């Protein structure tokens, strides 16, 4: 009996001793202590606790670097330049970076652990990105698969942005989704409505965020979003603008046109809206109204696959064909595009064929 006790005691003692060693090791080895992060050469300095990855650490200090995969190291949107203290490039980062990027110290911030003081460089605009809490004021259906969300900002109460920028909406954990994700949507409300954000959202089959918006989100719900992000915006030029967008791509333009109306701007503009069937067209009445008020604005919707017998007296054909038909002759023009990459590529082709130079065609590269 005594033997059993001694033997058991010995095993317990040795196991406990090792456990203690591990706990002490963890306390000293894994604890990275306080670290300083210098952003943009002293523009901002953060005092943070080391040990977490850079993306999350920055987020904890109110700096929101865009990410589509929630820090899992697959989307490569969270690139940040680490000038000092970044350590070697890890095996999960290397496949996502080009040799030139690695050379210039660009890193995937969600895969870099903060272990010591860092000097980093991020785009200036990211420093004015904030996290907003809001309440859903209104949800309405625009088409069978597109909804408009109106969100009243609660904290902070106002947002400052430029038409064409986007926000990242947080879809919380829900039945099909174990952890919050962020998805980008262009702001469709004009900047002068600075206490509200409107978004135009199209249902994506199997989409984490859109399933939540379409099936679970209700008026009065609280939402979180970060922003504003993006470099897509109108220029100061006077030349005619050709806008091409369909479906939820209307969002930035819905913001732009209402802001221009508010500012009393008068810049010649033709908006080509591509859709497949009559039921995919929305805001038709609102656009016709704007055309009446603003004589420099023309709205040209076109259906590429209208059903037989549908009442439609507008243009018919692929939107790029319609653009080709209407844009004639010489003239300084600028192109603004919003839509899927396929549609953007085709639109760039037709605009270039009409003499619009490459550097005068703008689109949001995030989409």
């Amino acid at each position, binding site marked *: 009996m*005594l*033997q059993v006790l*001694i*033997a058991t005691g*010995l*095993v317990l003692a*040795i*196991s406990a001793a*090792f*456990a203690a*060693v*591990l706990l002490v*090791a*963890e306390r000293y*080895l*894994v604890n990275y202590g306080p670290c300083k992060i210098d952003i943009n050469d002293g523009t901002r300095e953060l005092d943070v606790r080391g040990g977490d990855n850079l993306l999350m650490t920055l987020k904890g200090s109110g700096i929101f670097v865009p990410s589509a995969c929630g820090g899992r190291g697959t989307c490569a949107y969270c690139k940040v330049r680490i000038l000092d203290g970044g*350590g*070697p490039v*890890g*095996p999960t980062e290397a496949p996502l970076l080009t040799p030139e990027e690695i050379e210039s110290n660009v890193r995937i911030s969600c895969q870099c652990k903060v*272990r010591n003081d860092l000097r980093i460089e991020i785009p200036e605009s990211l420093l004015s990105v904030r996290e907003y809490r809001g309440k859903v004021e209104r949800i309405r259906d625009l088409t069978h698969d597109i909804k408009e969300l109106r969100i009243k900002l609660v904290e902070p109460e106002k947002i400052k942005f430029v038409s064409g920028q986007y926000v990242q909406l947080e879809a919380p954990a829900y039945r099909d989704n174990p952890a919050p994700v962020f998805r980008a949507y262009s702001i469709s409300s004009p900047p002068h409505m600075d206490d509200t954000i409107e978004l135009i959202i199209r249902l994506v089959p199997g989409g984490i965020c859109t399933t939540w918006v379409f099936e679970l989100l209700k008026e009065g719900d609280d939402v979180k979003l970060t922003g504003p992000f993006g470099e897509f915006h109108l220029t100061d030029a006077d030349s005619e603008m050709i806008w091409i967008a369909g479906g939820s791509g209307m969002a930035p333009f819905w913001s732009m046109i209402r802001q221009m109306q508010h500012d009393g701007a008068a810049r010649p503009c033709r908006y080509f809206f591509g859709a497949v069937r009559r039921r995919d067209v929305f805001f038709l009445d609102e656009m016709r109204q704007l055309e009446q008020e603003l004589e420099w604005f023309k709205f040209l919707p076109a259906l590429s696959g209208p059903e037989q017998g549908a009442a439609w007296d507008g243009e018919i054909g692929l939107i790029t064909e319609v653009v080709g038909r209407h844009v004639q002759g010489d003239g300084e023009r600028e192109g603004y595009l919003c839509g899927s990459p396929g549609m953007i590529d085709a639109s760039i082709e037709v605009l270039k064929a009409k003499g619009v130079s490459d550097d005068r065609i703008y689109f949001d590269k995030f989409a």
Partner: protein
Amino acid sequence: MILAQPATQIEPGSALNLMIILITATLTENMLLTRFLGMCPFLSISRQLKSAFGMGLAVVFVTTCTCFLNSLLYWHVLVPLEAYGVPAESLKLILFIVVIAAFVQFMEMAIERVSLGLYFSLGVFLPLITVNCAILGTSLFMINKSLAGLDALVYGFGAGLGWMIAIVLMAGIRQRLARARVPEALEGPGITLIVAGIMALAFIIFQGMIKL
């Protein structure tokens, strides 16, 4: 080329002794090809040369250190305690596993802290190694052969080295196999085990060299 009679007694602690231990552990009693221990990671990690090499290095490191630590634990703690009725033979299994697991955990933390470069190349394999039976096997064989101190250290190193040689060879062969026409039913584990068997046959040539 060392030619020694079977079960030759050579003066312990001498360089020749250590050399014999090393060669025995690496070649004639190869952990993987003679004893068939550590087959799991051998089959799953040996597809690519680079990861096989990384895994092999990690195994060498862990086997060497844990064999030495376990020899200290056994000969200097357990055996003296036998006087108090502690059954060293029965307890060694549990305690060796505890040592190996704790060591690997500790090493993972230490390597990540000290050298990120090293962590990226072999640190990711460390959690897989804890359950590699070749590591435990090395310690147990070391007890069987009554090796201690420096002998145990060299034995551990040799065992790990032998395992690494085997997995690197296998990875090289598998990379070539990728282009060969293997019958459908044998693809994957089937052909790998056949190749392992053939490699084991080849390693039999070392058998007659030395006996420890």
